């Protein structure tokens, strides 16, 4: 399930929703607004969902996954607020951990979101590009 939304999300509820037959592991990653500046997140409606879906499919091809949830928030976000959730269910921990990391690396470098911090547009980080390359 992929959602782009203004509203906050409930990590425990999203994790519970992935439990089911054969699920032995759910790995979750939550990105949170760091520091003291408010963030504003903008995205490209239509392309965002498609780009995330493409990478969820790639993860499902690569690892035996039993469920994937990606939620990315947009709009104004206060310090400490949740930004993004990636939750991956599998029979065992290894595919769940790997797929969670894979999806976050691609969200950072391919999903069309842009972050403004205290009125300044954030610069893309080379370290994020390097992190995504390890999956090529």
């Amino acid at each position: 399930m992929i959602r782009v939304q203004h509203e906050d999300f409930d990590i425990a509820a999203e994790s519970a929703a992935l439990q089911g037959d054969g699920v032995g592991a759910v790995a979750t990653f939550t990105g949170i607004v760091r520091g003291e500046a408010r963030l504003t997140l903008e995205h490209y409606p239509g392309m965002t969902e498609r780009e995330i879906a493409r990478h969820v499919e790639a993860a499902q091809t690569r690892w035996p996954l039993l469920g994937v949830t990606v939620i990315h928030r947009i709009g104004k976000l206060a310090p400490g607020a949740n930004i993004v959730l990636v939750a991956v269910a599998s029979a065992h921990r290894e595919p769940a951990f790997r797929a969670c990391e894979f999806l976050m690396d691609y969200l950072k470098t391919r999903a069309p979101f842009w972050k403004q911090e205290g009125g300044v547009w954030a610069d893309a980080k080379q370290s994020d590009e390097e992190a995504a390359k390890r999956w090529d």
Partner: protein
Amino acid sequence: MTLLYFAWVRQKLGKGQEEIDAPASVRTVNDLIAWLAARDAAYAEIFADPKRLRAAVNHDHVSFEAPVSANDEVAFFPPVTGG
């Protein structure tokens, strides 16, 4: 052709979307950039250093060598910074 702009590109142009009729000589994203940059100073400034920008055609990331045609949706934006 529909053009979309995001983040600082949108702010500098003062608009997020426009419809254009590009001449037939505009066959690639690079051609489109050159044509737009020749239109006025705001575009010239944005496209002065195309390495700062990325492009998508019909919701797919593309290189500037990618073809564009009249019915395409073409977006220009800085490298993404979500997550």
